């Protein structure tokens, strides 16, 4: 039986002396040999593997930290050679609609379906797709056409549902991708795939990759910010987890920092009661002075880094409240976003914050809006969801555009998959439900790097299968990276023996058709 090459029992007799490890360690190993025997042979194989992986990681963690004390300051030039080419967009804002919005009701116009109300969807359309446990047992798959009419808008004559009057006003600025598709049919793996490029946990998310690769534009604010929208208890709120903005195997300084709507905008930001800014400054001065003494004595470069981080924390204590202080916004802002935007935690508020962050050089902002999982009562829930988000999306894009920020900002709107054309549960003229649907869904993008007033990809007459120009989630992520000047194939990080990248080992291709 072929033994593991690192197993000391195999014929090749590989010993630690043959490994590419420092000679000092080899000597240590020799003296510790007896102790190792004492530890027992069962631990050996695992120990070898762990040892090898530790060294692998140790030598490569160095790469993650690049040159100099840290990556939070002095961004731009890095050892990674990024951006690979001149980017169109410097920053991105990702509006994530968790739960999966129904494309048939919102964007994918299928007028032929009206005549097919309640007819069974032909089995040939579905093919051998494995449905979710929620609808696999249904006797029928009655077609549920969109309950609300569609109309054409803009110079491009784009068809869009009446549920989205504000989005309709900006269709000339958007690129729709109607042929997006994914592999996962349930939320958690799908949302992981969308954000991290992999259905399994442990990989870094898009924002972490960008923070790692492109760094910061503003040293006083976080590079990657996550905004959660307050949940509406009447909606079916699928969970999200901190995995979605985690840095995975990349350094944890690249994970998303939540900007909260309750209490401190950033956790632990505010000084405790009884400590004012002046006192805090004095305290930090003392700490810094002592740290400098330590640095002089011991010579550890990490000390330098720590000094810088404390300074950054102090600056954040004033820059973040400035970011969230909306008192000096002109009236035109409230006219655009609506009065909801004054209330922290709403989607409109988060959009406004996203614009402010774009102005201040935050590299990547991600806003989560939960509740789109309309398995039933589409007629009741969908209008509310649209009303909660429509104006905010329009306001954000318009605000960025009129301030000249849309020229170098990429705005993305996406869910994790689509919804079925057939009704989940009962279908009536008044109501219906929709189940998960991975084979096709619609996303849109606006801003730097993508065309305006454009639609890419087509689905079949049932909005069930993609018939033209499919865009897998991997391709979608590759395109986002491309707009920001990154070649997704070259942007890798060695971990567990693989050159890991956001778009996973499966080949992915940038969607050239939507790029400017």
């Amino acid at each position: 039986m072929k033994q593991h090459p690192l197993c000391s029992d195999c014929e090749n007799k590989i010993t630690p002396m043959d490994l590419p490890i420092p000679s000092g360690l080899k000597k240590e190993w020799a003296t510790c040999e007896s102790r190792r025997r004492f530890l027992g042979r069962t631990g050996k194989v695992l120990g070898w593997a762990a040892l090898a992986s530790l060294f692998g990681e140790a030598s490569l963690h160095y790469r993650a930290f690049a040159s100099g004390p840290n990556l939070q300051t002095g961004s731009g030039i890095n050892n990674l050679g990024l951006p690979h080419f001149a980017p169109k967009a410097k920053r991105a804002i990702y509006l994530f609609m968790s739960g999966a919005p129904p494309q048939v009701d919102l964007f994918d116009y299928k007028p032929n379906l009206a005549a097919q109300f309640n007819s069974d969807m032909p089995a040939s359309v579905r093919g051998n797709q494995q449905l979710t446990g929620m609808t696999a047992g249904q006797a029928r798959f009655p077609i549920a056409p969109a309950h609300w009419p569609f109309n054409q808008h803009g110079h491009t004559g784009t068809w869009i549902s009446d549920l989205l009057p504000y989005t309709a006003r900006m269709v000339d600025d958007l690129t729709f991708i109607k042929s997006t598709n994914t592999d996962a049919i349930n939320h958690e793996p799908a949302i992981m795939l969308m954000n991290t490029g992999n259905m399994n946990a442990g990989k870094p998310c898009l924002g972490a990759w960008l923070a790692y690769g492109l760094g910061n534009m503003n040293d006083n604010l976080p590079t990657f910010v996550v905004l959660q929208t307050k949940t509406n208890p009447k909606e079916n709120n699928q969970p999200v987890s901190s995995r979605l903005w985690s840095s995975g195997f990349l350094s944890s300084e690249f994970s998303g920092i939540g900007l909260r709507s309750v209490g401190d905008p950033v956790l632990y930001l505010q000084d405790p009661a009884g400590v004012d800014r002046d006192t805090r400054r004095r305290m930090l001065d003392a700490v810094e002075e002592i740290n400098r003494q330590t640095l002089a004595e011991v010579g550890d470069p990490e000390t330098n880094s720590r000094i810088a981080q404390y300074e950054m924390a102090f600056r954040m204590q004033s820059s973040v409240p400035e970011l969230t202080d909306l008192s000096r916004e002109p009236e035109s802002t409230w006219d655009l976003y609506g009065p909801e935007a004054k209330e922290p935690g709403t989607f409109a508020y988060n959009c406004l914050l996203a614009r402010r962050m774009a102005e201040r050089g935050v590299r990547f902002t991600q806003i989560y809006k939960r509740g789109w999982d309309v398995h039933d009562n589409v007629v009741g829930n969908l209008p509310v969801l649209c009303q909660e988000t429509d104006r905010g999306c329009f306001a954000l894009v318009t605000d960025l555009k009129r301030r000249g920020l849309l020229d170098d900002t990429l705005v993305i709107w996406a869910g994790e998959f689509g919804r079925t054309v057939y009704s989940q549960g009962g279908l009536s003229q008044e109501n219906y439900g929709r189940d998960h649907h991975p084979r096709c869904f619609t996303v849109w993008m606006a801003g730097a790097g993508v065309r305006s007033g454009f639609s890419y990809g087509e689905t079949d007459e049932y909005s069930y299968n993609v018939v033209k120009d499919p865009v897998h989630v991997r391709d979608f992520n590759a395109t986002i990276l491309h707009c920001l000047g990154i070649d997704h194939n070259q942007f890798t990080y060695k971990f567990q023996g693989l050159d890991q990248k956001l778009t996973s080992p499966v080949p992915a291709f940038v969607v050239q058709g939507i790029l400017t």
Partner: protein
Amino acid sequence: MVMSATYRQSSKAGPQQLAKDPRNQWLSHGPRFRMDAEMVRDIALQSGGLLVQEIGGPSAKPYQPPSIWEQVSYPTSDTVRYVQDHGSSLHRRSMYTYVKRMALLPNMDAFDAPARDVVCTRRQRTDTPLQALVTMNDVQWVEAARALAERVIREGGPGHEQRIDRMGLILLSRVPPPPMAAVLEKSLGEMQKHYAANPKDARALVSIGEKRRDSSIPEPELAAWTMIASEMLNLDETLNK
């Protein structure tokens, strides 16, 4: 291992060593790295005498900012709301803290505690401003600083130098060298002046945390020493092994 010459090297690194071996891959000097998240918290608690030595028992739920769990949970989940413990459970060893993988305790997360959804053979050791914010502003640390201040006032005797020495011995295992002591003394003077002039601030500061404060110590004094303790808890030397 701990008896080996390599391990017993000093962690001082000269410029030549740094140039050739900046990450200490070749073990040219003693290892020096920031402690794990749990150790950082445990040291803060233990220095103030707060750490509960009890072994085993149910998980503890210490201080946490509001609405961390609600933001991620399924609405009908039984962990949608975080109900904080009181009393001694707030000061148990960090390894007993209840873990919800989808929403880690933020102060542990800041110090690279793993999320426990993949195997972790080695933790990261990052330096971020969030860590600074945690050790400066988290209730846990402010309370621990106050407890430490109370301890040195009790144990260190009446004089400043002795108290500072006591604090150094507790946290750094050594008496602070003269340059460090000088900085701390100067800072102490400033803090004392400030809190003497602002008794309301002093009261607010020493009331943080559920552990009742030692009422025999005057508030301005305690507040000033709390700030010094906080300074020492934030030192690079304290946080590093």
